[in-house]
């Protein structure tokens, strides 16, 4: 009996709700979330995506920016591919977001995901980090050109990075080598299981140089350190602990590389929802809570709205597929 009553009730309630929805839409043309938002980190707890998801959720909640809460959800597997496959099935859902960064382009290009950035709705680019080239403190290389001259003479010299061939660190290095006049595929790139692993091997003198994220390296630099930086991939000098590190461009190598991070949503998300989230993130980036967290994590604000972000992603895809095909790693 109860279920019958409920059914009846819902028969009445549904049209009512629809009318109510229409009304509010007509009033303000605005969309607001009607339940909590699933914010997916396509990886295990602890990584870059996870940190972004949790920081954003926390700041939005602490600053009281949204009526509904952001629930951080980890969907690990396949370097993101498992989560992407799940989200791709959720077309049109305005309550589903995920954190993203270059792997959304690189993983599909390497043939390891059926879905790429064009399958999802770009919401906003939020922050960026840059690549950094490190050598041991007592290394003979003082500038990038010292290093690249040595690499030209002896292609066997090993440069370590924190990720697999064809992923971020390798792409960044290959692009830099290309800009410095080397054959990108000639660099002996040694993949380690993370930036920290690569830096330990650098300190131990097992490899010549390391390419990794500047944010990951900044704690290692400075007085008493066993490693020093030769250059960062930023368009202009960074602040804080990296103020002394020259950019590639300062050293006459015309190359920059962004390790950007942003937010995307389920496929075909309604435009009103996209607009809502865009505004929310703009507002979030102005809060003290965000600025404090951002500085502590070594992030740099690099906001782009949905449209700019989408165009940027297309352009990144083109750039990356060029580099990958030069390296012989393109598998699409």
């Amino acid at each position, binding site marked *: 009996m109860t279920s019958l009553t409920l059914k009846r009730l819902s028969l009445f309630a549904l049209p009512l709700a629809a009318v109510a929805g229409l009304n509010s839409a007509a009033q303000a043309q605005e969309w607001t979330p009607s339940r909590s938002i699933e914010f997916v980190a396509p990886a295990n707890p602890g990584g870059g995506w*996870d940190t972004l998801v949790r920081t954003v959720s926390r700041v939005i909640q602490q600053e009281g920016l949204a009526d509904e809460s952001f629930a951080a959800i980890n969907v690990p597997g396949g*370097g993101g591919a498992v989560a992407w496959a799940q989200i791709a099935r959720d077309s049109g859902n305005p309550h589903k977001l995920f954190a993203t960064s270059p792997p959304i382009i690189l993983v599909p290009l390497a043939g390891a995901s059926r879905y790429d950035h064009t399958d999802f709705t770009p919401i906003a680019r939020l922050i960026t980090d840059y690549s950094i080239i490190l050598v041991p403190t007592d290394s003979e290389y003082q500038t990038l050109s010292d290093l690249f001259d040595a690499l030209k003479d002896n292609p066997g010299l090993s440069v370590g990075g924190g990720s697999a061939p064809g992923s971020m660190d390798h792409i960044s290095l290959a692009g830099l080598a290309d800009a410095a006049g080397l054959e990108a595929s000639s660099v002996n790139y040694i993949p380690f299981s*993370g930036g*920290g692993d690569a*830096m*330990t091997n650098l300190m131990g003198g097992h490899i010549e140089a390391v390419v990794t994220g500047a944010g990951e390296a900044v704690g*290692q630099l400075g007085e008493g350190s066993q490693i020093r930086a030769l250059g960062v991939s930023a368009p202009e000098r960074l602040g804080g*602990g990296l103020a002394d590190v020259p950019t590639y461009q300062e050293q006459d190598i015309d190359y920059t590389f962004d390790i950007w991070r942003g937010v995307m949503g389920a496929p075909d998300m309604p435009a009103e929802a996209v607009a809502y989230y865009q505004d929310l993130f703009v507002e979030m980036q102005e809060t003290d809570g965000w600025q404090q967290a951002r500085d502590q994590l070594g992030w740099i604000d690099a906001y782009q709205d949905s449209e700019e972000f989408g165009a940027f992603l297309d352009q990144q895809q083109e750039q990356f597929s060029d580099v990958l095909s030069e390296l012989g790693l393109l598998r699409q």
Partner: protein
Amino acid sequence: MDAFNNLMYGFGIALEPINIAYVFAGVFAGTIIGMLPGLGPISALALMIPITFAMEPSSGLILMAGVYYGAIFGGSTSSILLNAPGVAGTVATSFDGYPMAKKGQAGKALAIAAYASFIGGTISVIFLMLIAPLLSKVAVSFGPSEYFALMVLGLTAVVSLSDKSLVKGLIAAVVGVIISIIGIDMQTGTERFTFGSVQLLDGIDFLVVALGIFALAEVFYMLLRGGGGKEAPRNAIGSLKLTRSELKEIAGPIGRSSILGFFTGVLPGAGATIGSFLGYSMEKRIAKDGDTFGQGNIKGVAAPEAANNAACTGSFVPLLTLGVPGSGTTAVLLGALLVMGVNPGPMMLAERPDVFWGVVASMYIGNIFLLALNLPLIPYIAKILDMPRPLLLSLILIFCMIGVYGMSFSVFDLLLLLGFGLVGLGMRLFGFPAAPLILALILGNIMEESMRRALQISGGDWMTFIDKPIALGLLVVALLSLGLPLLKKRRKKIPPDVAI
């Protein structure tokens, strides 16, 4: 007495009432997290970052470190009682802990685990305090060649872990290596053994295999053998008390394994799991009654438990002195420190002595809390074995499934768990030892990656494994540990085993 002054300074921080509360909360939460299979310290710590965000960095790290070593401490409980390792570092504990429980000595096994964990934890904190800065040099001296040699040495334990038939042990080990290389190959980005499945791209999680092959297989085996609830429940928990001779017996293994475990933990990428296996197989080899390991030998519980707790503390060396995480768990801790505004690294000891010494001092306190917390609980926790068989088996099943699902939220992993349960059952029925498979699964991938990395750096020159003194030394020890037992056999004039 610089270390002494610093330590007093550290105790000044750790003994602040709020920090004592954090240590207690941390180790308590850690113990529970450790007991539940699947929910490991990594996810627990990641979930805690928002809580620690607003804390004093020293308090935050004290709390999180407590969760970490508390989980390793508590992880032995489910290994011993249910054959279901709570965390990866306590797999080796189940080799002898579970047989002890089956013999009605669950109480004793848990007590030994608690004492060994306490001593391992405490000895390693002393090392951490005295020589951490020096050790950072040891940590970085291990490059790919050295890791390869270390993994080879670790793999020689297959011989001592294959109790009856060496051939069956080797077969299990090879299968373990094969499972370990499933997924995207780090060196080339190529997929291996994934059969086009996205689910397998990241490989198979070690705990899925361990829970399947140990816990689930045990459930299946009991069902086959006992037909469900016919057997009387094993009501005997046994006494917690150790005799004087038993204490004497485990003193040596605990001491040696604490030191071995600590140094294994210092090496980035080795950690508690490898430390506990190395401790276990070392003791099995040097013990006079080594052949009773695996049947409920108390030394087989003491050694891995001392080693895994010592390794856990050791893994703070690269984190606090170099700012590089040696494991997934310390990577999360590193992230948490950054969020709290502390830059772990070479300058941290000078810039934030409060964090370093506060945490070191809190570890002494935390270990005492853990012992005081765990010992009185043993009789109650061990009561789980008094449950009627059908209930107990269902409970293990649910534990394993929740554990695996909670780790990856993937139904696919549940099917894998079931598959490995059946594999484990088959292995038991046909006399294949499970330990070599697990060991090879842990070491195989690191061994292969290190070897290829080393060769890539050296330009394909195999001398890279011989030119380096540490690598060469480890390989020689590996050879000796394989060769000596054979020589011993020959001296006894027993014809060499044809099976080899």
